[in-house]
């Protein structure tokens, strides 16, 4: 098969940090080529260069073996390169067809006529590749998986033949992911070139024709995934094999957090939370499993103190009602919160690491009274925590938090939240988007907190994570807990509970 897209000896740095050094990568027509690596290995940077979003400092880009220079995404589109980003770039109040029309080159004809034409094209293309999409639906009303389909249709209708998908399965359930990857594979069989950026070994193993492994900004090797087992792939990406944390069942203590009949207001005939009942005990990890979008995010927000209108009871040992507690009272309870959306809820990216650390304990006077902020103590504490929790890439406490990679940002959140021995830990998808090693470090911290007597609530869509950590598992579906399992739990039974009640 001839080469579609070739990157040779590409280097790129951000603010002195070398994201890519001498990386090379080739995808051929007709293949699904996986780009595998940990967070921060440089996968997205390399593909952003291929999509014309970043300009490299050195190196060549070849399309059909011709050297090409991309000045921007428009040039990339002209070369028929299309990228589907991890964070979708859609205009939410617009319809599917309008979003797609936005990405098409300008042509003659009235807007109305072109929109109708686009609607027809979308419906045709969607039918052709087996996507169920109504071109007139507003994007805001679509699920994540549907929005992703819109993104893919967008690049296909713009004429893309070289398709770059950045972590496409990260936001999908297992079934959705499988369907998507089969579709993508079909596209490749019809002649397109597909780059699959991922850190999931199983996706690579099952759907990729070739795989290129990246580590620390370099491309390590390219090989056929059929000829290598997962353990070896893991070894290649992380440099060493991580071990699963040991898990022994603890004797659970008294109930620390009791949720009864938690419901959110009715909207469009249904409630997002429709009566959650659960008990969280000291010294245990209670995990909530379920297909995404069944109320997990709303439950996490309510428990983490975000204003979310709802009724019902959340009783906390030693305080009473959590819903009406002030921020100060919540602090007193020593609740550690690890939200799923790191830069949306946990860290202020534009502020320094020290500020982001200090906000955790400034309330209790550790950093001076109300009239004073003891910058020296803040910095010393921050340095100590960065050291203890192995936050890499933090060159100084004054550095912006946004400069940390995903895994290290998560470590900073945990460092802050665990800086006072927590009574209750609330963790929502704590290892999402993290590489194997960073994820394992997060799991260790959760287990350590449990062993120290904290009550840990783990809300996760990753069943492997749930099974590895939980003492008890509640399955959430349709806004409530529909089944509970004790460790050791049967994977099949949990999976059945997740879909049966939907």
């Amino acid at each position, binding site marked *: 098969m001839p080469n579609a897209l070739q990157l040779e000896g590409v280097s790129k740095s951000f603010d002195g940090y070398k994201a890519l050094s001498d990386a090379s990568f080739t995808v051929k027509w007709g293949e699904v080529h996986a780009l595998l690596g940990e967070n921060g290995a440089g996968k997205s940077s390399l593909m952003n260069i291929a999509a014309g979003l970043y300009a490299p*400092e050195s190196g060549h880009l070849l399309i059909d073996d011709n*050297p090409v220079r991309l000045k921007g995404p428009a040039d990339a589109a002209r070369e028929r390169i299309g990228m589907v980003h991890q964070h979708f770039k859609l205009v939410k109040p617009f319809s599917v067809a309008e979003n797609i029309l936005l990405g098409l080159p300008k042509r003659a004809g009235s807007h109305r006529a072109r929109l109708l034409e686009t609607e027809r094209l979308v419906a045709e293309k969607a039918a052709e590749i087996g996507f169920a999409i109504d071109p007139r639906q507003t994007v805001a009303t679509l699920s994540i998986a549907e929005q992703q389909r819109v993104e893919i249709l967008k690049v296909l209708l713009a004429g893309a033949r070289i398709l770059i998908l950045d972590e496409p399965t990260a936001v999908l359930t297992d079934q959705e992911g499988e369907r998507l990857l089969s579709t993508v594979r079909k596209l490749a069989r019809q002649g397109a070139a597909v780059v699959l950026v991922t850190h999931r070994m199983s996706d690579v193993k099952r759907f990729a024709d070739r795989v290129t492994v990246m580590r620390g900004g370099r491309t390590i090797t390219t090989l056929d995934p059929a000829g290598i087992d997962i353990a070896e792939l893991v070894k290649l990406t992380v440099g060493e094999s991580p071990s699963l944390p040991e898990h022994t069942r603890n004797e659970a203590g008294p109930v620390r957090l009791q949720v009864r009949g938690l419901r959110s207001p009715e909207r469009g005939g249904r409630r997002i939370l429709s009566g959650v009942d659960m008990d969280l005990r000291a010294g245990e990890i209670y995990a909530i499993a379920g297909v995404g979008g069944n109320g997990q995010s709303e439950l996490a927000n309510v428990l983490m103190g975000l204003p979310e209108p709802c009724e019902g009871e959340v009783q906390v040992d030693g305080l009473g009602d959590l819903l009406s507690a002030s921020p100060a009272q919540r602090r007193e309870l020593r609740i550690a919160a690890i939200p799923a959306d790191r830069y949306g809820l946990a860290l202020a990216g534009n502020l320094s690491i020290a500020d982001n650390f200090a*906000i955790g304990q*400034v309330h209790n006077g550790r950093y001076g009274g109300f009239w004073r*902020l003891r910058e020296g103590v803040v910095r010393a504490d921050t340095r100590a925590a960065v050291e203890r929790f192995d936050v890499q890439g933090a060159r100084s406490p004054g550095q912006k938090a946004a400069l940390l990679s995903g895994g290290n940002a998560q470590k900073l959140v945990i460092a802050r939240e665990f800086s006072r021995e927590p009574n209750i830990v609330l963790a929502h998808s704590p290892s999402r988007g993290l590489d194997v090693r960073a994820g394992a470090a997060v799991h260790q911290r959760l287990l350590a907190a449990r062993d120290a007597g904290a009550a840990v609530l783990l809300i996760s869509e990753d069943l492997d994570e749930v099974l590895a950590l939980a003492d008890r598992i509640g399955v959430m579906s349709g806004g409530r807990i529909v089944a509970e399992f004790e460790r050791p739990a049967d994977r099949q039974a949990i999976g059945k509970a997740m879909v049966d009640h939907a």
Partner: protein
Amino acid sequence: MPDIAPTAAPRQPLASRRYTLEIRQQMAWHWQALILALALLVGLGISTAILVAAGVPAGELLNEFVLLTLFDLQSLKAVLFQAAPIIMVGLAGCIAFRARFWNLGLEGQMIWGGIAATAISLFEVGPEALRLPLMGLAAALAGLAWALAPVLLKLNLRVNEIISTLMLNYIAANFLLHLVYGAWKDPRDAFPYSPQYRPFERIPEFFDGYSLAIPLALLAALLAWWFVSLCRAGLYLRFVDANLRVATANGVPVRQVIITSVLLSGSLAGLAGWLVAAGQESRLTQAFYQGYGFSGILIAFLARNNPLAATIVALLVATLFVAGRNLQVFYQIPFSMVQLIQALIVICVASSDFFIRHRIRRTLGRDA
């Protein structure tokens, strides 16, 4: 010559470009200061060119602008005299904007400050010795009160503060006219202003003709700086500024922080009104506030909402005012030229942001 023009643009190798742009996350503060200074220089350079084109002799310009304004004792006094209320409105802007509250009502709050101070004088509230501080206190409270409604409306009913504060300016300005043309008009002559304050109701000079207003404004700047950087509220304020949801999730008392800083902003603007009325005009006039609201916003922007930087920028703006007035007297240059120069400088500084956010690197491509 045979036609050999290619039909499409030639495909160039990727690395032939010699300069690349990088997004920069962080920059040392002294570099930022240098870039800002350069931007100011560029703005002043363009302004100079315009002034020369408008007929001011180039040689005289240096004389007028720099020497006469800064090294002449009389002009220096004039600059400092002018600067105190400008510093105050600049600080008022900084503190409100830090809480993501776009307080465009600085003028309205100033007007109420002036009105309240004048009321204390007119109705002879309090003993003579306490009259002036009482006027200041009344001004601060009046400014605060005028800022209270917009912040409560915003927090409770999500009323856009840009509209509410801006519109409240008109109410304040027309009420001011109502007073100076009506009940509070000076009976001794025909002009629309209030009776003159008594000598002990004016801000005194403290050292051979320097108004006490300047040390007061500097003190306010120090307090504002302490508020935003050295105390716990400052940390809270940084989180409110950076990301409201993160602040909420981390237990920052968001509501209290916003209310406190907006009220502080309002009272600083009220104090600015007092500084103009009691320090410069010695009475309530119909247009004493004009231009301050815009300058306050501009200063806060140029100073990146930093109170200490705002003080310096305010001094520059005051210099520009005084120099502009001199130019007006000697060369018949219209005063709107001052506003043009202000605008030019703002545009230059705003553009300089590009160099703070990006890094331009020279790269040696392999085949370049």
